[in-house]
């Protein structure tokens, strides 16, 4: 950081902050906790090595995701981020089930209507059956969600880490 104050990393590591310090753009001195977390979980030299292997234009995102993972690990030393993944997967499964129930109800009603055409008003008979079939096909794509793991979770509500207004610092 040249003549200005050292970055948060160099302050914590008690060393001179070089002009080309790899941490300086991402760990400003006004947020010491950010580097402290990352250093605690990953270690400064590992973070430095990881950043060096990443193109410069992607390093900010890499740092943000490392900070997210470090915070998650400090909050939940057993499961870290994996707890969040487990929780979100269970949410997806619940939604799939609800969708399947709703789709089945529609199918049942459609079958009833096909068997008893006089049981509907004219607006329902104009329902586009093709729309429902493509809805079913698109809904079935949810079954392609890969199961990432089968861990138990100790996390509560989890925000999307890549929504800039949430957990990115």
């Amino acid at each position, binding site marked *: 950081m040249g003549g200005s104050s050292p970055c948060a990393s160099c302050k914590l590591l008690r060393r001179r902050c070089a002009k080309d310090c790899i941490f300086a753009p991402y760990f400003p001195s006004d947020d010491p906790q950010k580097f402290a977390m990352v250093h605690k979980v990953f270690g400064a030299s590992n973070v430095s090595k990881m950043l060096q292997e990443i193109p410069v234009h992607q390093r900010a995102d890499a740092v943000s995701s490392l900070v997210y993972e470090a915070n998650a690990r400090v909050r939940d030393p*057993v499961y870290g981020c*994996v707890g969040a993944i487990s929780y979100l997967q269970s949410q*997806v499964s619940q939604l799939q089930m609800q969708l399947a129930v*709703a789709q089945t109800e529609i199918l049942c009603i459609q079958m009833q209507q096909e068997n008893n055409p006089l049981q509907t*008003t004219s607006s329902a008979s104009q329902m586009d059956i093709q729309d*429902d079939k493509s*809805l079913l096909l698109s809904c079935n794509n949810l079954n392609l*969600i890969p199961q990432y793991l089968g*861990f138990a979770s100790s996390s509560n509500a989890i925000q999307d*880490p890549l929504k800039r207004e949430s957990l990115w610092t």
Partner: protein
Amino acid sequence: MMPGGGRCAACKYLRRRCPSDCIFSHYFPANDPQRFVCVHKIYGASNVAKMLQQLPANLQAEAADSLSFEARHRVEDPVYGCVGIIHRLHEQIHNAETQLARTQAQLSVFISTRID
């Protein structure tokens, strides 16, 4: 030390003797060397040892598994690691909620236009 006297994957990789109370031996068996390679690359052996030692023994296996999972995904995706998975799951939840709302709205129309 592993049952049978061999070294665990960690001690093999670190080229050291595997003591009988090695913190790694239960969670980094010799038959899966890549598992320790990943956690060592991302966290470092001493960080992993510290994190495991701070946990009760009955939770160390789960912690080792989750650290391995995160390390493996960080090696595969050095920019986002497993945070990329979290983002994709959020997107899938958003899409699923939208489709569910549409389906339930259609269901309401079906029900309301049915003559009993």
